[in-house]
């Protein structure tokens, strides 16, 4: 029996032994430690059945925009370079330049999320639970795009499903120094990637508590981060930490980056659920989208890369570029679920790797970006003026 098998059995034994002493009543978890593995994640957006947050409807996607921009005129011939490749250029080399296509932002006073800046501003939302000052400008960007809306937006569905299915996405939050899962003013929080499949039920889709995980220091050391937190009335709140986290959505080794990420999770001995909120790095988010969801997939649920990029840039509210002053990050929140998991004790080599881990960095964008003026000239001719030229469909 190798070390891995022995450790798994020991951990399972420990889990079974500890199961009787529920921490729900405020008892400390075994060894004052509890860990949770992520099983679901999707961008936290307001999505009511009546779509009151989208009074003008939902956005067009790649396919609809193509038809709008390049109508199939009888007798006329369109070139691939001037149509398809032009749109691909605008997708792979996006600019913040306004275009003539309509874009419908999520509207209304309500959106899920957290107050990230401690200030209640005019653009802030109120959470569905009534908390004020919620910073979630990503809700305005994605709120009226079918791909991202609950309950069954295609990209939302697949990205959520892949969190459980793909080992690459095995984010683990481990709490140590926990005296009570109900109230503890100070706990240590470690975020890292696990290496193993999640324990699921016979159907394969429902995560179960009590599984085991090894820490991934071989490939995932860039994801290791530490922060502090507190537990109040069973809710964990962590201090902000800049966080690179793995999120493969379609078999691509892609990541996301959140500046000042903080967790707000309701804890139980079996799992955790709540939000991870912070300022999402726009270039990293967009590259993640391009690599996982090229034009075909964007068409599943009518989204458009260039439109999203322009909206993100327009609504960005953090991390101004020192040179241009343009913000490079946008307030956001992920709705996430976790299952309790037993992390195998770290070996000496793993502890050394943890101590030496260097946090990953965000993607910084194309080194030679396409100038906005170039797109403006192509889109509007020589006299670009407005973001809402007279194209059919503009509200």
């Amino acid at each position, binding site marked *: 029996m190798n070390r891995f098998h022995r450790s798994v059995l020991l951990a399972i034994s420990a889990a079974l032994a500890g199961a009787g002493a529920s921490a729900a009543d405020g008892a400390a978890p075994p060894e004052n430690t509890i860990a949770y593995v992520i099983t679901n994640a999707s961008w936290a957006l307001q999505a009511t059945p009546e779509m009151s947050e989208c009074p003008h409807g939902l956005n067009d996607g790649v396919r609809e925009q193509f038809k709008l921009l390049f109508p199939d005129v009888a007798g006329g011939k369109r070139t691939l*370079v001037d149509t398809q490749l032009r749109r691909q250029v605008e997708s792979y080399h996006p600019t913040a330049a306004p275009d003539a296509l309509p874009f419908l932002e999520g509207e209304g006073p309500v959106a899920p999320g957290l107050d990230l800046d401690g200030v209640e501003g005019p653009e802030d939302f109120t959470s569905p639970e009534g908390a004020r000052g919620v910073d979630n400008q990503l809700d305005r960007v994605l709120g009226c795009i079918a791909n991202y809306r609950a309950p069954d937006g295609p990209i939302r569905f697949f990205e959520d499903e892949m969190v459980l299915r793909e080992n690459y996405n095995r984010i683990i939050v481990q709490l140590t120094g926990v005296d009570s899962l109900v109230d503890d003013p100070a706990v240590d929080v470690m975020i890292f990637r696990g290496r193993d499949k999640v324990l699921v039920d016979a159907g394969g889709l429902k995560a179960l508590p009590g599984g085991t995980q090894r820490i991934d220091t071989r490939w995932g050391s860039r994801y290791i981060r530490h922060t502090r937190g507190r537990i109040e009335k069973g809710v964990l709140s962590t201090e902000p930490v800049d966080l690179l986290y793995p999120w493969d959505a379609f078999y691509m080794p892609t990541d996301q980056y959140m500046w000042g990420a903080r967790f707000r999770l309701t804890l139980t001995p079996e799992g955790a659920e709540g939000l991870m909120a912070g300022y999402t790095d726009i270039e990293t988010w967009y590259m993640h989208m391009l690599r996982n969801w090229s034009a075909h997939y964007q068409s599943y649920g009518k989204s458009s890369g260039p439109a999203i990029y322009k909206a993100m840039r327009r609504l960005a509210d953090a991390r101004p570029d020192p040179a241009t002053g343009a913000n490079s990050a946008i307030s956001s929140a992920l709705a996430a679920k976790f299952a309790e998991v037993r992390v195998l004790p770290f070996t000496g080599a793993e502890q050394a790797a943890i101590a030496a881990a260097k946090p990953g960095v965000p993607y910084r964008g194309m080194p030679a970006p396409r100038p906005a003026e170039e797109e403006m000239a192509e889109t509007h001719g020589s006299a670009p003026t407005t973001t809402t030229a007279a194209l059919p469909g503009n509200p």
Partner: protein
Amino acid sequence: MRSANRGRWGAALAFAATLLSAGAAGAKPAEPYIPEAMPPGFRVEISELDGPVFADAKGRTLYRWPYRTMRNGVTGDSKGQSNCADTPSTESAGLMSPYPGGLLLPEQEKRPSCQQMWPPAFAADSDKAVGKWSVVHRRDGRLQWAYDGAVLYTSVRDRRPGDVLGGDSYRHQGDAPAVREPIQPRPDVPPGLAVSTTLRGRLLQTARGLSVYAFDRDTPARSACDAACEQDFVPVQAPAAARARGDWSIFTRESGERQWAFRGKPLYRYAADLGVRSVAGSDVQGWRNVYTQAAPPPPAEFRIQDTPSGQVLADARGRTLYNYTCGDDAPDQLSCEYPADTQVYRLAMCGGGSAERCARNFPYVEAAKDARGQSRLWSVVEIDPATGHFSAKDQPGALHVWAYRERPIYTFAGDAEPGEVNADGLGEFQSEREGFRAFWWRDDFFNR
């Protein structure tokens, strides 16, 4: 995270170990294959990457164009029939979503026809069917060779016997173009085993795709893998009826269990391999993957670099290496990835249409002026950076760049640190259709 120096040495050592497993320098056995009847003069050539391939009497590799279902239709050859036209395509076919067909293709004045790129393997009136080989009547009245019902072509890219520049035997997944494939004799492996093409060589695996291993301390006469070891490394069993032949022999374990051995080494699979093509067992000291034929090693200045998903080839500074893949959406599905092909798609992808921006975003991996490829697989080509095409002889400003299968190699300037793979999959359909892909030496998460 390891220090830079430790990482560099670790990578170098891993690289050396892997090459050893693939066959010692100077001793590169070819993949065994099952001989079969062929038309007069036809032969088998041993290619560097794909192993044995069938070739015509002049040594030119033979290809088929398998029928392929795409997003919005099908293309390729049906059995016994060539759909490779002798007139150039002018419009896109709309086979790939979401863009419509009927768009005028770029650079039409230079666009070749399918048959110009893929000369049919014509047969003479006197040629007769033999074994799996048959002679079919083309629509133009001429005769064409077919293998197992698939009509055959040569590639204008191939110049020497053993070249396989027109296609390859890599796995091309769902949304790849309808690519041409070299036709190959069956690998001579026992039932229950298979071979797949990887960057490192022709990987021996079980029929279910699990990698096969050998132990350094095993000899043809004795296994050093005891009962405890067998819990992790499970012998690949040979049935009672199995008989030794060629590179294959039967090793009888102390328990009496019969085990396949290849070139004198008993074979195992690794119990903890998480998926197909995993090579995680090679992390255990003394254990190596088994290749029926090693691929030529990359240039010595390249290194193996750890990433969040496994290992990639990288330049001397640890920057991930990429190649560019492209097949156009015309009915004939011609390549647009080779320097002699149109560069319109690549320039759009890497620079928004600007060659200058392309060169800054995706710099060519330049080779030293005196560098020469040590194989056909890894070569040095001369590129005109203003166009992306091969340069003319002694052309001023031409770049001397490393190439894989004669396709230039790039880094991505958006990878700020060693181990980043920010451009992997950047393109249409995760770049299966068009775009940049990292050179995955080992992928522990996605089985590439």
